[in-house]
């Protein structure tokens, strides 16, 4: 039985549908990230899970317990759901000390004083906050505030942890550290976790599964690798990855297998896609290749596209290069080990080989096949 079942969840704000018929099962102990651009409905979904918003339609189940159902008229209040929530701004009560912030939930449960003190101290120690008990939130750094918020959440030992962009207010370095801490914490506690973020690196690094959302609609659910390498549709393909994946319009010239396509920016010769599936002849498609899956060659080879280098952006460990195809100019981005790109000069003519990627139906935006992967690119 899944630990969280989201069934057909719909939430509207007036005319706007923030979440549209969302369905998602989350197993016990999973760390699922809701990922998407701002306004995609991820936070609303989280708030519905927390009970801070009441959905318009659908059902929510925590284990075998229905916490919301519009048909049955069920609505369990947030406090009775056994959840913990960390807000983007931490929402620490400025008029309470760290101790009282953390102890709030325990006091609410009516635990004996000594027990409360013991557990709060334990948690604060776990998070490296010993000695800060009597400070007010305003006297803490951002990272410390974040840890207090975490402590406040887990001290009541909730079954389900909810995070609403908890790291977005921190600087990059601290974010990195806290990511590791979060992951460690999750593995220690093992509570089912739903995590909202717009930062895909965060999603890719932390999650067991990622649910990508756009405009209130769930686009794809899968492991980080699935979502990254085999996006279900053009939106996910474009959204994932930094820099964004290359999208090259093409026409199918041979059904295959392996199917062949004629790339529109370079319509001189068809390119064979290494896949065991077929594509209908004459279909207009979009070929999607991640920058790191575009190989740069200094000399022409078969099935390579000629292009001109416009800029290289080395970062130390790797390098991103921007190129323009000849003919109908299309910008192509590549990424690879720095030493491969270093000899290249802007203006230089090179040849590009598409190693692996996905093909999408231009009309529907749905993925038709993957190519170049070890598994042969079946769905």
């Amino acid at each position, binding site marked *: 039985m899944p630990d969280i079942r989201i069934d057909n969840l719909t939430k509207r704000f007036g005319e706007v549908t923030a979440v549209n018929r969302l369905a998602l099962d989350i197993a016990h102990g999973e760390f699922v990230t809701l990922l998407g651009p701002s306004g995609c409905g991820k936070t609303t979904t989280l708030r519905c899970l*927390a*009970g*801070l918003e*009441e959905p318009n339609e659908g059902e929510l189940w925590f284990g075998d317990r229905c916490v919301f159902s*519009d*048909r049955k*008229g069920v*609505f369990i*209040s*947030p*406090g*009775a759901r056994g*959840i*913990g*929530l960390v*807000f*983007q*701004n931490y*929402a*620490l*009560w*400025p*008029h309470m000390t760290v101790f009282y912030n953390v102890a*709030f*939930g325990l006091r*609410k*449960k009516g635990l004996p004083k000594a027990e409360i003190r013991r557990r709060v101290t334990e948690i604060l120690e776990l998070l490296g906050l010993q000695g800060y008990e009597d400070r007010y939130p305003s006297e803490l750094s951002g990272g410390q505030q974040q840890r207090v918020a975490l402590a*406040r959440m887990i001290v*009541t030992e909730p079954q389900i942890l909810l995070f609403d962009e908890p790291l977005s207010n921190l600087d990059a370095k601290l974010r990195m550290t806290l990511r590791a801490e979060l992951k460690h914490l999750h593995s220690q506690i093992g509570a089912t976790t739903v995590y909202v973020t717009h930062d895909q690196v965060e999603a890719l690094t932390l999650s067991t599964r990622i649910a990508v959302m756009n405009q209130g609609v769930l686009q794809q659910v899968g492991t980080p690798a699935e979502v990254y390498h085999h996006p279900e549709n053009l939106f996910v393909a474009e959204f994932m990855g930094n820099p964004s994946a290359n999208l090259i319009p093409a026409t199918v010239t041979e059904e295959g297998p392996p199917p062949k396509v004629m790339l529109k920016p370079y319509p001189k010769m068809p390119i064979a896609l290494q896949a065991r599936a077929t594509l209908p002849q004459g279909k207009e498609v979009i070929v999607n290749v991640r920058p790191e899956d575009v190989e740069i060659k200094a000399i022409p080879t078969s099935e390579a596209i000629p292009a001109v280098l416009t800029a290289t952006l080395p970062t130390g460990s790797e390098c991103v290069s921007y190129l323009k195809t000849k003919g109908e100019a299309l910008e192509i981005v590549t990424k690879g080990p720095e030493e491969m790109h270093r000899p290249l000069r802007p203006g230089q003519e090179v040849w590009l080989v598409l190693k692996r990627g996905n093909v999408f139906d231009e009309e529907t935006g749905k993925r038709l096949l993957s190519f170049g992967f070890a598994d042969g690119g079946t769905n």
Partner: protein
Amino acid sequence: MNSSRAFQRLRRLLRRPERAWGLALIVGLIVFVVIPVAYMALHSFMFDSLGPRYVRGAQPGDWTLFYWTRVLTGSLSRAIFWEPFSHSLIIAILMSAIAIPLGSLFAWLVVRTDIPLKGLFNSVLIIPYIVPSWTIGLAWLTVFKAERFGGQPGLFHSLFGVDPPAWVGYGLLPIVISLGAHYVPYSFILLRGALASVDARLEESAEILGAKRMEILRKITFPLVLPALGSAFVLTFGKGLGEFACQAFLGLPIRYYTLSTRVYSAFEHRQHGQGYVLTMILILMTTLTVLANQKLIGARKKFTTISGKGARHKPVKLGAWRIPATGLLLAFVLAFVVAPIGLIAWETFMRYEGQYSLSNFTLHYWVGRGDPMLADGQPGIFRSSFILGAIKNSVLLAGATALASGVIGILLGYAVVRARGTWLSRTIEFLSFTPYMIPGIAFGGIYLSIFARKWGPLPALYGTFALLAITCVAKYLPYSSSSGISAMHQIDPTLEEAAEIHGEGWLGRFRKVILPLAKGGFLSAFLLTFITTMRVLDLIVLLVTPQTRTMTSIIFRYQQQGYTQHAYGIMLLIVGITLAGHYLVRRLGGRIQF
């Protein structure tokens, strides 16, 4: 299906306390604001008890356009309405033109520059608002009273041997200056808050781009504090239209009438119909001001929300301007705080008023036992059980009103801010501002008519202390709601949600999270209503019963009976009590905010 939908909707409503509470507030506002206004609107189309004397055969209560045409187009409309109306407009505009720039300048000097004595100015610059507006007006007369108007000439005449020009003593100029000075604190308080919350980086980035200081003020700071300026304008302008006492003291001697003195005299002559018409126009004008303000700067309102993360401002070095700027502030404090209170205090120690000599000094009016030769044998203030009783009543009424207003302010703020953007929020905000525009005397009269007897679920409130307090609370809703709203703006909703996650119910959240955080708003509403109630007169004059006389209700009587020293003494006590209240609340960490 249907019933469960309805049930769901109801539950959703109740789960959102701001909605449920908002609806309750709306009901309250309908009873205490809409119905009185509707009552007034309706009665402006009916003959009043004087109707039969104007129109033969008219019966009181008959429908008529008589009063509207009389006021707007009749042969007397110029005298009754148009001229006073234009005077009111001019006063409101000019006093805003004094109060707002001066208040903003003071705020800027105190918040942003290296001016000395900041602590002193911060607390003292509020005082012109804390003391009643007519103290400045009366003190003005003490100084500039012309011999032409008889009696003891003012200090000016005593010093220079000649009268100041008539236009200095009475009419537009002194009214504008007195009221302008009185409302300087409005802009000062509002701008002080706004300036402190502007992120310094916004200005610094302009500085880096090479903008001159004035340019930064004009292009960056000014637009950012514009909403605060807008609120200051609405509050000041509205007051300018409605203020009575000062305009009466300084305007009537030269027959300079304003809308508010006309409204007052209409009610004084029991010309209710005419009074209601004028009041409706007053309400309409203020409403238009509020709406125009919302249209102009409403969209920017969110700019002002305090992020609290702004970098600290480095104080502007005034350099050569430091001394003149300090001088200006000191001069203002001297002229509009020290002098008025000092002059009034002085008067209470004069055996015969207006004679500034040591031989004339007496404590009689404070502690005397009563001398038939002085003030008809009225005993001194501290020996008069009548006055002492009034002091007790005033403090009780002001305290009760302030306490209730503080709580209601927070609740109003909660409903308005949490439901921001909904019709509920807008309606509550608008309705709670409406009493600002209704003259006190009309408000009190209507309340007496409506709430004196048992009415629906409301018991008959006549003669109860509760009716007085309810009237004051309702009349001062604008203060409590604006305090509450501005306090609630600073409380992020997630603070409450965090408690909700821990299973805290609405009352618990309110008690443990909202109330402690909104303490400032509570204290501000408390302070504003306490101050205002201490000096309220016309509002409650019809509602008081013998046991509920207040200090103000006896001041004007004493003034009219010629017991000047008593009147001034009680006035001084009011000033003293309000200042003490202000000091106490400040000690608790509160300050006035709108």
